[in-house]
């Protein structure tokens, strides 16, 4: 059994403990079934985090992946930035925009 570390809200705290299998499970827990489009955003978030040093905001995801904001709202309804971060095993984004 794998051990993972999460904060008080349930967000992973260790970048290296994430896996694609885990992502699918995390997504399912918040009612999202991952499609290729979801993966495009999630993989970007994972790849961007180490170099950028913080979780990409919704705008950053949209600008750098070319995925329209509207689409991100459809894929991760309600609170897209936080939901994407959760599934990607990253902290909540701290940027304002």
């Amino acid at each position, binding site marked *: *059994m*794998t*051990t*993972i*570390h*999460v*904060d*008080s*809200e*349930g*967000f992973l*705290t260790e970048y290296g403990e994430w896996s694609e299998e*885990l992502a699918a*499970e*995390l997504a399912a*827990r*918040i009612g999202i079934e991952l499609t290729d489009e979801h993966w495009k955003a999630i993989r970007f978030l994972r790849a961007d985090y180490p170099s950028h040093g913080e979780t990409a*905001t*919704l*705008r*950053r995801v*949209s600008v750098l992946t070319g995925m*329209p*904001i*509207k689409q991100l*709202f459809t894929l991760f*309804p*309600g*609170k*897209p*930035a*936080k*939901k994407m971060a*959760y599934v990607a095993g990253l902290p909540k984004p701290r*940027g*304002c*925009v």
Partner: protein
Amino acid sequence: MTTTDSTPLVVPDFGDEATQGRKLAIICSKGNLDMAYPALILANAALGEGVETHLFFTFWGFDMITKSRMNDLKFTMLGNTATHLPQGLGGLPGMTAMATHQMKKQIHDVGVPDVPEFLEQIVASGGHLWACRMSADMMHLDESDLYDDVEAIISAADFIEKTDGAQIIFI
């Protein structure tokens, strides 16, 4: 920090149900560059949290949605003691242009879009833009002069009706 097995017991509460029904109304009454951003940033943040958001542009705030002006909002040192520079400097020729240029650069450097692009993002996120009837009449403007995504020119009473139950921010 909590240690748990691969099926985490703690699942974030994204409050999907709690935010449904929460509404925010932001009244934009200023046309200065530095007074445009607080509304745009708050609206964007609220939408990202799943909150229904309405912006009402009135008086000088009309500049934010007037096609001929929305790209050209300005920042002036005059009357703004927070620059901590002598007020007399602000009145020198070219100072407002210089201060505006500097502020636009700072905004750009933190990855925040300019006003028209920010409005586009707000609309894409589900935000609603409304223009004030009295301001349009005073300035002799109609919908053709305004940013395309403005839904309509409406009266203050209409706006109050549309934002029934909303939290209101006046800027």
